[in-house]
């Protein structure tokens, strides 16, 4: 469980959002909505320990941390950006394997077992035949799946995704969201920002909204009212 208390985010002296208390349960699949510039990415990056714009306390699975001070949860929390552009022709297999790079010795050579694990993961999406293809040559949908696979492979308990539906066509969107749903059923806590509340409502267990400088938890059933007030 993630418990946030007295959080506050500001950028360029302007307050973005605040909340007195927020609780995210294990296995939740939350859609984060709000206008452009409301602070969605800021919130996700802060949860991943990447952003210093947020102050306040976080209780992650029983351990208390303070944002900007001692909160570096890289092992258990994974942030998945909209898109990455690697330098060089790194293969899909190597890309996913890089998720556990920090656990290896200085040569960073994955074992046969590790390679097999990733190949099995790829096989779930019928992507094993492209294991040695360069990441940059994959389609946007395949790249998105690879990004999520990398986080799953390194056993992150919390996945934070920035606009997972972006760049994806209808069938890939479905594939990605169905997988996220499955992962949350398996106990992963997932928060994703989105500009498509309708689509998200099919899969999400709840909504987080950023509106008028406040971040709140909302029920999925109230989606229409929420969308009306925010946009």
């Amino acid at each position, binding site marked *: 469980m993630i418990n946030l208390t007295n959080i506050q985010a500001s950028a360029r002296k302007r307050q973005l959002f605040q909340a007195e208390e927020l609780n995210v349960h294990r296995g939740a699949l939350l859609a984060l909505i709000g206008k452009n510039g409301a602070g969605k990415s800021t919130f996700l990056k802060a949860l*991943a320990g*990447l952003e210093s714009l947020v102050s306040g306390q976080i209780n992650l699975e029983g351990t208390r941390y303070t944002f900007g001070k001692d909160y*570096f949860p*890289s*092992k258990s929390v*994974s*942030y998945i*950006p909209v898109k*990455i*552009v*690697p*330098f*060089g*022709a*790194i*293969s899909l*297999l*190597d*890309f996913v*394997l*890089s998720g556990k*790079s*920090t656990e*290896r010795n*200085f*040569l*960073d*050579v*994955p074992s046969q077992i590790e*390679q097999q694990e990733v190949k099995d993961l790829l096989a779930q999406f019928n992507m094993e035949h492209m294991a040695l293809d360069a990441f*940059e040559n994959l389609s946007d949908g395949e790249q998105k799946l690879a990004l999520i696979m990398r986080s799953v492979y390194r056993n992150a308990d919390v996945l934070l995704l920035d606009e997972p539906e972006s760049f994806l066509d209808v069938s890939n969107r479905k594939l990605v969201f169905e997988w996220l749903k499955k992962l949350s059923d398996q106990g992963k806590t997932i928060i994703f920002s989105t500009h498509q509340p309708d689509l998200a409502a099919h899969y999400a267990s709840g909504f987080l909204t950023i509106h008028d400088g406040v971040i709140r938890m909302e029920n999925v059933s109230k989606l229409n009212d929420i969308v009306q007030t925010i946009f």
Partner: protein
Amino acid sequence: MIARRDILVLVFLALLSFILFVFGISVGAISISFGDVLSILFGKSTQSDTWTIIIEERYLRTINAFFAGGTLAVVGLVLQSFFRNPLAGPGVLGISSGASLGVAVAIMAPFTVLTGIFAQYTLGLLGSFLVILLLISINRWIKGVTLLVVGLMLSFFTSAFVSMLLNNSTDTMMRKYIEWGFGSFGMIQLAYFWYYILAVFLLLIFVFIRFPKVLNTWVLGEQMLLESGYKTAKVRLMILLVLGVLIALITVHCGPISFIGIAIPQLARMILKSTNHSILLPTSLFLGASLAIIADIILRTTEIAMPLNGILALFGAPVIIYVIVKGAKRGTNI
């Protein structure tokens, strides 16, 4: 992942560079047989005349070529991954032009703070460190190709002062500076040589142990580096510092050597299938060392009056053009 084929390539290149090393010592005005070279290398003494020639002429400069060439290639590879730009290299970032200004001051300045080769080393190192500090401080905002433009501007900036010094110097000083600028593995000062080689060797070991993992994640973007739990500010500082010291050391001892640092890493990436830096780095090392020794052998044994940087340009420029054209065909921007 490292392909088995790539390990064979690495072993082959390591052997090649060793053979070239022995060959480099063996050829010259007086040729020494391979057997003699080997027995000297392994500590058995032969006739004392041969020993003297080897020690003074070829042995040291071939060692110098091996380490300087190899290191420049390693540094170039790290810089390309670090800036995520295939055209980055020790010369392009202005670090060696900082060294050039320092050396120019040491050789030609009308005032003397320090004298002799010691001044050349100290001021050369100081000049490159100033550039490194500047690069570190602006790298937060300026990334990719723009940083290379900054490096280019720094070169113009420093060369303005160098040309001023050139204008006011005597012919002897000018000649000394220009010869340094041509680049050579033969400018050896015995008093400092082994310390310099030791420093380079230790830093290389540090690079080989500490850098591969970081770079493997770094090429995915700074976000992924942070996300994987690295402190990017620390990593950035470590990389720029270690590379800066290496470039400075090589440049003050061998002159501003161009092309090895850009072309060899490209070649290494082309030859290898793997993108893991733990094999890219040593491959670059042995390729760079081999090229440097070959260039030095050509310089010493033929009558062509071309300086080291000239020979390296003949090899390096086509490789770089090839990479750009290949990149353009694939649609990747440089």
